[in-house]
């Protein structure tokens, strides 16, 4: 701890160390140091200005390279991601309020009465490698069940910023990797790049963290979720998409009504850590196509799809 530069983050973090979180009874074998790091990571992601180049690799595909920047101005932040390879598209999120915390980030933070991700992952901390020229701390995040993948994350020792993530599947296989190649802190945004297309990222209304706003209107419902997953945003029960997060993994369930019969069946496509599982079923007598897309194992996607019911 003393090695930390005493930025206001460190101060914030030390202040937080005094906050009691859920009792040990509810949260077995919690590694307090790791939990504090994750908390710090989630905060720095919002409050620190930085820009850099990140590489992304999965399977036998070509490496993708993107430039990212995050600038904080007053009470809001602006994020920009520009592809330097492939399509050359740009994704921008402007004026995101710093105090707007989505459920996934809430799960990474030290709460009053929640274990957050520690409930579903075993965390351990060790010395990390040099990433993008910066000293890092390594957090190994091993799933406590078979419904999710594991991660090895390397955080900037000073700021807590996430510099590198490897997603780990069965047999310790690395499914995909994000890694900063270079990184600068501060606001001097990089000069303009050629972009083919610019997309403004959406900003859905975060779901209330306490309960799933289960409006009792007719619609479809996912009856089974892996432990620790909660809705990311507040949508009506008839919405064609519902998304869930456990703080590290996210999957979305899509429902399409078909205008004719489809023979029941299922299919899977995988890419890196992403799974797409599609199943043709009848729901309340109507033919529908259910699809689960997300960074979870196929078995999880299948069980989620299997639990979908129609409620009047």
């Amino acid at each position, binding site marked *: 701890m003393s090695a930390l530069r005493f930025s206001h983050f460190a101060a914030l973090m030390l202040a937080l160390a005094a906050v009691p979180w859920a009792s040990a009874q509810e949260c077995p074998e919690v590694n307090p140091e790791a939990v504090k790091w994750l908390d710090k990571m989630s905060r720095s992601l919002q409050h620190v200005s930085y820009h850099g180049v990140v590489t992304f690799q999965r399977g036998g595909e070509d490496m993708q390279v993107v430039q990212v920047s995050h600038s904080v101005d007053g009470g809001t932040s602006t994020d920009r991601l520009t592809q330097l390879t492939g399509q050359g598209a740009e994704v921008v999120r402007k004026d995101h309020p710093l105090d707007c915390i989505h459920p996934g980030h809430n799960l990474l933070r030290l709460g009053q009465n929640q274990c957050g991700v520690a409930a579903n992952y075993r965390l351990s901390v060790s010395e990390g490698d040099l990433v993008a020229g910066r000293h890092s701390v390594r957090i190994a995040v091993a799933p406590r069940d078979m419904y999710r993948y594991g991660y090895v994350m390397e955080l900037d020792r000073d700021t807590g910023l996430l510099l590198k993530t490897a997603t780990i599947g069965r047999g310790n296989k690395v499914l995909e990797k994000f890694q900063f190649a270079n990184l600068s802190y501060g606001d001097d945004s990089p000069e303009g790049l050629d972009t083919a297309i610019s997309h403004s990222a959406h900003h859905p209304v975060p779901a209330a963290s306490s309960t799933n706003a289960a409006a009792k209107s007719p619609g479809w419902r996912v009856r089974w979720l892996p432990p620790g997953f909660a809705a990311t945003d507040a949508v009506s029960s008839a919405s064609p998409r519902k998304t869930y997060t456990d703080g590290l993994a996210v999957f979305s369930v899509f429902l399409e009504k078909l205008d004719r019969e489809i023979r029941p*069946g299922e299919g899977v496509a995988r890419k890196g850590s992403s799974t797409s599982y599609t199943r043709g079923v009848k729901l309340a007598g109507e033919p529908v196509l259910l699809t689960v897309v997300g960074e979870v194992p196929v078995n999880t996607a299948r069980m989620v799809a299997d639990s979908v019911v129609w409620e009047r």
Partner: protein
Amino acid sequence: MSDKMRESLSALMDDEANELELQRVLKQMENDGELRQTWVRYNATRSVMAGQGAGNLNIDISARVRTAIAESEAAPSLRQRIGRPFASFAVAASVAATVVLGGQQLAQISSADDPYGNKAVATVGSSPVGLVNTMGATAVQASYGTQAVPSLQPAAKTAYKELARQRMEMYMQEHAEHAALNTPQGLMPFVRVEEIRE
């Protein structure tokens, strides 16, 4: 139950089964109660080991599937016609089910990109809508009047696999919008999107 089957089953559970194993297990599950029990037990054991209750694991999809199969009118002749048994979760060999792909053109079904960047040209069948190749999905010319309705004859497995692939492409951006706000990688989930749309 053979060791091979046991192995396949555990591979299936771990998300690591290859095409062959998947087929083998699913086919076997149809009429092998012991195998189904083992599947449930594996799940339960593992979740207990992972420190969870085993309560929510008695999901026996296969039973439901068997019911569905029993209810669906199978046309065994197709199986004989193809000359090889095919397994899919819902082992259905019924009449052609037409799938509307949301206006998406079904292209490049059989295209294998070669490493030198010559994209194989998808063969576009010139058959009218509805006349399809029973061995899998066939690309059908995309415009008939104003409607683009490629149709699929699921030799269910191939067709559903293709559907899953298409859905990944179709939905990944919308999924990324939410992943980008709920995971620690910021906007990075967008790099998983094949082609970003405005």
